[in-house]
């Protein structure tokens, strides 16, 4: 049997992950290697240049661009307060006087004698970069950021929207095949990572927003509801910057699909514990999947363990798999046979297949490309 590579999503009770935390521009790193950090703790800080306001002085004063220099009260590099006079003319008749006031507090960045334009820049803003996960710093990249390592439980989703957030895991349903209804979303779920079952409707999405949940982890969603939530049709799966009020992670796909039992059991076991989640997804080469990280324990400073890189072998008999294409989309079973000969499927294509046995003892022949390994011990 040929070595067969099968893509899979990790659902594991124990692993070690490293996350690279990088500032968007050079700044100060606030942590040291070996230091224990919290998810909501700043690990680095940078000063972002303030917003730029262009102001055409020549137009406002009714003079040529090359003349504005003589009307300026403030020069390039000067600080300026909101409503402070930037420039004024000196007419013979006083009531013809024109004053140009600054619309913002900041600095006069530049004055152009060509366009008659003055650029004002607001004071820099401080950006704090959080740790994202509870863990320890294993590497510091001077001026740029740090690498946080954590021992954790890890669930990878198939698709998500929204950025990083954190909260306590809270179950809203009792079984993985139960759909999440608006009624199940209660006020106490504010700021929590709410775990649903097979599906969430548009009503429940609206309710989740009202309640103010931090995140939603769910089996499936209808594409039309996603489109309504985003306000546009997603063409290419590159997400992570959406701002819909919460982070949404799908564990199975589009439609009403029961969450894999293993995923639901793992999340149930960690109800009440804090988790860090990210909806960022990039489905293309160099893939990024959404994730739920539940830190298990913090090692003492100085006991930095090596990261175990999961070694994935080909698919084997007995492996737990999820069927990822109709007509059995979403069903989970166990590999019972791996015939190497090509077999004809209903489309008349001849493909490599595998036999999958389900919990009820029934079996189905599925193209090998239409299954996904449920990975992790």
């Amino acid at each position: 049997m040929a070595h067969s590579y099968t893509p899979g999503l990790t659902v594991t009770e124990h692993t070690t992950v490293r996350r690279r935390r990088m500032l968007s521009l050079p700044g100060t790193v606030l942590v040291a290697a070996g230091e224990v950090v919290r998810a909501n703790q700043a690990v680095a800080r940078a000063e972002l240049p303030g917003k730029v306001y262009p102001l055409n002085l020549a137009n406002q004063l009714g003079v040529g661009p090359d003349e504005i220099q003589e009307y300026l009260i403030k020069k390039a590099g000067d600080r300026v307060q909101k409503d402070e006079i930037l420039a004024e003319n000196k007419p013979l008749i006083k009531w013809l006087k024109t004053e140009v006031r600054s619309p913002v507090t900041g600095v006069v960045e530049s004055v152009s004698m060509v366009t008659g334009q003055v650029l004002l820049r607001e004071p820099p803003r401080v950006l704090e970069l959080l740790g994202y996960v509870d863990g320890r710093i294993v590497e510091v990249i001077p001026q740029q950021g740090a690498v946080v390592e954590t021992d954790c439980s890890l669930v990878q989703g198939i698709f998500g929207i929204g950025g990083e957030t954190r909260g306590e895991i809270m179950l809203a349903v009792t079984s993985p095949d139960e759909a999440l209804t608006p009624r199940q979303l209660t006020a106490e779920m504010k700021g929590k990572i709410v775990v649903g079952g097979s599906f969430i409707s548009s009503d429940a999405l609206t309710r989740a927003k009202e309640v103010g949940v931090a995140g939603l982890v769910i089996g499936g969603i209808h594409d039309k509801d996603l489109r309504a939530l985003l306000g546009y049709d997603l063409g290419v799966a590159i997400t992570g910057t959406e701002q819909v009020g919460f982070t949404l992670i799908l564990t199975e796909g589009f439609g009403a699909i029961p969450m894999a039992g293993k995923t639901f059991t793992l999340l149930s076991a960690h109800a009440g514990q804090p988790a860090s989640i990210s909806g960022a997804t990039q489905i293309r080469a160099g893939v990024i999947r959404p994730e739920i990280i539940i830190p298990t324990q913090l090692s003492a400073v100085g006991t930095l363990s090596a990261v175990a890189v999961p070694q994935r072998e080909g698919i084997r008999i007995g492996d737990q798999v999820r069927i990822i294409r109709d007509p059995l989309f979403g069903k989970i079973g166990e590999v019972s046979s791996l015939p190497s000969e090509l077999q004809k499927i209903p489309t008349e294509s001849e493909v490599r297949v595998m036999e999958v046995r389900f919990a009820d003892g029934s079996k189905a022949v599925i193209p090998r490309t239409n299954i996904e390994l449920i990975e992790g011990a």
Partner: protein
Amino acid sequence: MTIQESGKITHPLNVIVATDCGSTTTKAILIEKVGDEYRQTYRGEAPTTVEAPFEDVTRGVLNAIAEIEELSGRKILDGDKIITPCRDAKTGVDIYISTSSAGGGLQMMVTGVVQNMTGESAQRAALGAGAIVIDVLASNDGRLPHEKIERIRTMRPDMILMSGGTDGGAVTHVVEMAEYISAAEPRPRFGATYKLPLVYAGNKDAQPQVKKILGEKTALVLTDNIRPVLERENLAPARNKIHDLFLEHVMQQAPGYKKLIEMAGAPIMPTPAAVGVIMETIAKREHLNLIGVDIGGATTDVFSVFEGLFNRTVSANLGMSYSISNVLAEAGLANIMRWVPFTIDEQTLRNRIKNKMVRPTTIPQTLDELQIEHAIAREALRLALIHHKSLATALKGIQQERTISDVFEQQQSGKTLIDMLKLDLIVGSGGILSHAPRRVQSMLMMVDAYEPLGVTRLSVDSIFMMPHLGVLSTINEKAATDVFVRDCMVYLGTCVAPIGQGKDGERCADYVITFPDGRVDKGQLLFGDLRLVPLAGDQKASITIQPAKQVNLGAGAGLSVTREVQGGVVGLMLDSRGRPLQLPSDHNARVAALMKWYNAVGLYPTA
């Protein structure tokens, strides 16, 4: 036969293994010298392994080759190494060669100063070069500088196109944007081993400052301003640079590419370049006007040779897996649904398309799923040809001008070179066309998408090996030609499609077909008909068509045409459904029409 590389004579070339690393699958073929000729003997495929944890394209290559090993009984691999040259009749290969498009689609971010001026010009340039524009940043787009910076960083674009300012105008805003990009320190998606390509096509006076700010941090390429003066748009130089960088730079950054280069006995070719070599060779050898298409998972590449002029476009946002949802977004649901011969609710269809997007390596398992993919493929093919037509213009190499009065019109100027009536041959390649369970499915997908006019021959790449043969032709012309003629090119047949429209059942044309054995088939084509006349690949027949008064077959309305037509594995397709092709707007009538046509040509198995 020997190959000579860098002056050194190597071994005879009798057994060749070639792979194409696509965005979704890695396809391997084995070519062996049988007697005096080269033949393709075995093939294997495996998912392309650029995803974590492998992040190494060679893993998929080894898996695909392992499949060949299993099927052929030849030992090719020794651990992670390919055994070269052959040690005996059943061990090793003489050379390993490969093409790659595993980088997937081209995702670009463009910047301008004024959003609806230079921002839009930059977008047009990028779109024209086949990119997906993931964001347009402009000085006046209302976002705070840090938001722009964060956006550049989080989007991880494959390439940035910077524009802004007219030549000789103010440089400040362009320089400011360069500073934001510099501050973002954009990371390419495949790690830190190469610098992000950045094309600067703005105010030429700002070039020194841009070079100073970004020269070290990015792989900066300076080119002519896309908006040298307000009234003129000059997109060609920027587009060409984007094309070059995409083919030569971005696409080759798939993880493990360096290892792949070491494994290969000849330079790795970008897939579109390799397919282009083949297409151009066919057209030149047979003096044809040709359209070729390679529809992949992330991109659809269209090639054309008209009057000897070769053109190529990459529609990076049209494909059958990674980009499938984008086909839906661009074509619209109604355009996809019009090809589906059954009733399916919108929600189910949308969910299925999104599920394919998030799990791009899956294949249709049921007939209705296959029909949906074929419907989407028709639209992807159609849109990619529209894109190609807009770029393959008579003004190739000449700057395209857009006057101030055209600023608000988004139409492309310049007459397209693509004349469907002068088209001799359509060549299809890519998974959905090469692996269609029935060849007639590939033929009708291309006929529906391209609506060929008059008499047009169609062919398909048998098992998707044009990329492999394109690269092979660079090292061994005979081997490539042998395999191309005998194993690769499958002539489907010829489509005869009168131009004109009429009511269903009205007379469209009368025809007389004279077969090589002297047999004569006379008949009448009615509007709304689709017929298949068997004619084997090695046979030629003569067809005389007398169109109705308002119908044209190339000679003019109502004028008779006699042509020699070549057969194929499908045969002669007589398509009097009308040109332009119009489908009934009523749902039930449309499904009935589709069923009638599909059954008439035996498109799908019937229950």
